């Protein structure tokens, strides 16, 4: 197996995490990971060794997601926002509390405009620097930081209001 393939395998958990921010449904998210893998591997020659493979792959995923959402809206396939019913089994105690908390965070993220959600996901969840995140999103750094500031403010106003 060539080195890039091995490194992409190592990235799989993070690719799945980023995909879950984009496509909330976990099966949709794994479909997105699959598309991303296929594209990344078919273009492996375009990746410049010495640059960040995670950023490169996230950018492919971001573009795959944009293609997917455009195709969906062309098909006029509207997804109901899944506000109702936390799909949380009864498992009691702190574990359930943690899942309810996670569901609340995911709902707040889902309400963000997509450009803000991507900025928040790359910096706050994936831990990318502002520079790397701006490169993934193919936007100027100033645009990234303004999306980030607005996204954070919206999340905090949603998440802190009931506490």
């Amino acid at each position, binding site marked *: 197996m060539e080195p890039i*393939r091995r490194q992409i395998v190592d990235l799989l*958990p993070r690719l799945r995490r980023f995909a879950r921010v984009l496509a909330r449904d976990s099966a949709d998210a794994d479909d997105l990971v699959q598309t991303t893998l296929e594209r990344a591997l078919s273009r492996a020659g375009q990746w410049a060794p010495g640059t960040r493979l995670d950023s490169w792959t996230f950018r492919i995923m971001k573009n795959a997601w944009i293609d997917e959402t455009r195709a969906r809206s062309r098909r006029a396939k509207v997804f109901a926002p899944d506000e109702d019913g936390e799909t949380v089994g009864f498992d009691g105690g702190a574990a359930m509390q943690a899942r309810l908390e996670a569901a609340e965070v995911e709902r707040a993220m889902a309400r963000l405009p997509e450009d803000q959600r991507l900025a928040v996901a790359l910096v*706050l969840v994936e831990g990318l620097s502002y520079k790397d995140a701006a490169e993934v999103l193919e936007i100027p750094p100033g645009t990234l930081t303004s999306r980030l500031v607005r996204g954070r403010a919206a999340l905090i106003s949603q998440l802190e209001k009931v506490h």
Partner: protein
Amino acid sequence: MDRDLRIAAYVDGELSGADRAAFEAELAADAALAAEVQLQTRLRARLSAAYDPILDEPVPPRLMATTAAAANDAGPRRFGLGQWAAMAACLAIGVLAGRIALPQGSGSQQGLPEPRAGLARALDRGLAADAGPIRISLTFRDQAGDYCRTFTDASERVAGLACRRQDRWETRTLTAWAPAAGSEYRTAGAETPPEVLAAVQAMIAGEPLDAAGEAKARDGRWRR
């Protein structure tokens, strides 16, 4: 730079050197600013708590298979022996990578992530007197007789409490935390957040260990 942007840049680790020092000086003098930093730190911690468990999930086999199979898309779609072997190797590496990247597996009984490698090392070997991004404050025995330790982790911006259970550390309490400005020489425990101290109060049997007791417990590898 406007105020919100500076707060974000500070919390995201984007300020360096003089900018960071200047911000921390302001932070020490401005309670409102400190409260905003706290909110932003808490947001980061909540996002991590929500999304990081995905890293611990097993990667679906179809994704592993994609990384093994996609190379020869131009060729016939039937797998030769070599490709199956590559796929098997890929699966093995994936499993291994999962273990290496996330050495502690799927979390403690309370649904909290188990300590990551750096923290586990500090819990294993650190003493309250040690400096570094991860500080250990209190070491004590719980009612079951197991050793527990409180910690603050400046790089992950969390504080918490972990207890030794069967040769590994289990996180029992975890909360967002940021070092207060200019606080490098505070006494142990002074920076421990109230939630963590409350957990200590609820669990402790007797008194916290002193420095000698702590060193002895460490050298005994935290066996009861």
